[in-house]
């Protein structure tokens, strides 16, 4: 097992991750093509930080997050996770038996507060599920732990006897967070945790996530499509397009001085809540590329205002243009792009 090349501060390192979904047609369901959902993704997450994966539909961020947790088995690549006991394991190829105990150290918060809780079970059952499945504690201890967790996420412990339908979306999302924290995981993957919530509730949940991170030393892999939300919680951001990372940097430099044309367009497309800022937008032509049939070379080139011949022929590699700032663009060093002002 290769350890991530650092001083032991990296909790997670993903190398050349690939996930392909076969497309089947016909009566005999022959494979006619592949959806390249995740097409060679590499990144790392330091302990205690928040890395955001952002992108639009079909960019592969959700699939990547599910691969990290092995909810989905990757087609290729490595997912190196530093366990609490010390050794680094490759989640991608781990046998099922070894995977189960590892699950305690990485958990997920889901997007939809309505479908992520079993409507027929009480909050107690839902939050205690990880404890029961891993045979942690006896009944009394579990009830205590659930009460503690509910308090931690801002809910009253007496709610544990009730069913999810009695609660609002924001409250249910808190229950989902409590469940994710039941086994004290080191890594929490949050898949669009606030997208399905009302605007005013988003703020509450984001604040809660920040507080919990400070309190418990959590590491977040935060998947989102809303760049404003990402700005509030992330230390570093990776922008994805059609299964690839096109830019990855710390939050401030990425937002203030993006180096990839897609990031520029994405930032410019976000509607700003200030009518005095109706600036000229970078408007992209066409629709988001199809992961089943990505354009040759750089996947973004058909929509890119700065594309040249090389972009159609050669797929760009993600490389550092500045320390800590990675871009996959042939023209990264020559372009001057517009970001968002503070």
């Amino acid at each position, binding site marked *: 097992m290769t350890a991530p090349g650092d001083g032991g501060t990296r909790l997670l390192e993903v190398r050349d991750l690939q996930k392909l979904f076969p497309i089947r047609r016909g009566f005999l369901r022959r494979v006619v093509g592949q959806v390249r959902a995740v097409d060679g993704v590499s990144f790392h997450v330091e302990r205690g930080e928040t890395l955001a994966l952002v992108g639009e539909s079909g960019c592969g961020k959700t699939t990547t997050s599910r691969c990290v947790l092995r909810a989905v088995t990757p087609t290729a690549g490595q997912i190196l996770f530093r366990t609490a006991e010390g050794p680094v394991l490759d989640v991608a190829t781990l046998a099922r038996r070894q995977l189960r105990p590892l699950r305690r150290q990485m958990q997920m918060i889901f997007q939809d507060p309505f479908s992520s809780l079993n409507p027929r079970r009480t909050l107690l059952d839902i939050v205690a599920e990880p404890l029961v499945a891993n045979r942690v504690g006896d009944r009394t201890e579990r009830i205590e732990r659930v009460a503690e967790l509910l308090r931690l996420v801002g809910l009253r412990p007496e709610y544990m006897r009730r069913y999810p339908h009695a609660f609002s979306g924001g409250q249910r999302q808190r229950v989902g967070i409590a469940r994710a924290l039941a086994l004290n995981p080191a890594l929490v993957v949050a898949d669009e945790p606030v997208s399905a919530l009302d605007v005013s509730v988003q703020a509450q949940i984001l604040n809660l996530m920040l507080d919990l991170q400070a309190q418990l030393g959590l590491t977040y892999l935060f998947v989102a499509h809303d760049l404003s939300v990402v700005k509030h919680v992330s230390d570093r951001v990776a922008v994805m397009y059609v299964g690839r990372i096109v830019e990855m940097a710390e939050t401030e430099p990425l937002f203030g001085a993006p180096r990839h044309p897609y990031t520029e367009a994405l930032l410019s497309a976000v509607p700003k*809540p200030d009518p005095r800022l109706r600036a000229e937008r970078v408007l992209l032509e066409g629709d988001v590329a199809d992961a089943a049939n990505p354009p040759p070379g750089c996947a973004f080139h058909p929509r890119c205002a700065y594309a040249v011949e090389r972009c159609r022929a050669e797929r760009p590699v993600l490389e550092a243009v500045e320390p800590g700032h990675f871009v996959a663009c042939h023209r990264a060093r020559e372009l001057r792009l517009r970001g968002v002002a503070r």
Partner: protein
Amino acid sequence: MATSAAGVAGHLARPILEVRDLRTYFFQDEGTVKAVDGAGLSVYAGKTLGIVGESGCGKSVTARSILRIVERPGRVVSGEILLRDRDGRERDLARLDAESREMREVRGGDIALIFQEPMTSFSPVHTVGSQMIETIRLHQELDKKAAREKAIEMFGLVGIPRPERRIDEYAFQLSGGLRQRAMIALALSCAPRILIADEPTTALDVTTQAQILALLTRLQQREGMAIILITHNLGVVAETCDEVAVMYLGRVVEQGPVDAIFHTPRHPYTRALLRSIPSIHAPVRTRLPTIAGSIPHPYNRPPGCPFHPRCPDFMPGRCDRADPALRPVAPAVDAACFLYEDAGA
């Protein structure tokens, strides 16, 4: 409840659609849900009104009430929906029978509606073109060939590439952005005076959303129609709207020009809402001010002002007893709050 009679500075004309004290209730077995409980709006020709609010505020139901397509067990209980023609004739849509011929002519002809999810407005077994042609022929006297020409023209107008080919495709063959454009084309095919867009970009990617919003603005400039844009996204409102109405739990709590709403919000809810939205300009990793509590369940409406349990400016004995009326609090701005009741308009 009349809104500012003078309208927004610069609007010398009267509104082409005026909603007064609209109430739409849903009579369910478990209880009555007062989805819209006293809403007032003014829509001006060639301008965009944004209706913004969170879940349960009644913005979608308001749109459906205007078009009289509220599903059972809901119905418009009281209020006026005044539609003004070019020659000044006024009709109260609330008085018309929802199934009447006159109302059907209003739908599509005077007022058109586009939805959040375009897949559900297109029939899965008909081509998008055939639906357009059918709608065109329903409202105008054109033969099949001429209607098809017009449909192709509309598709081109909304920016669908190669419209003469796309017109024979089915809804599922189009991407999300193209479907939304097709729906806009369908809505505009009979040149309505008002276009109601109910969360038209919520289901779209942000880059596609930017395209669609730019399209709507361009079409408005070209055709001169009024747009009512319903959304929960304050950024979208700031970018595209001229006037904004903020709704909470079935009431309009503040209405005014977009700059006033964003820079000098009057109602405590508007203020709290604006402070709590994540912004791309914020410093990295900052906490957000939140609104205390959560939106009450529709069956548990608080007495008096619906926002009072969460209001930082709550006045005991006043806000929980009586309903504040929507009245002018500044030039062209209306708000429903007792803070302004004593000061006067």
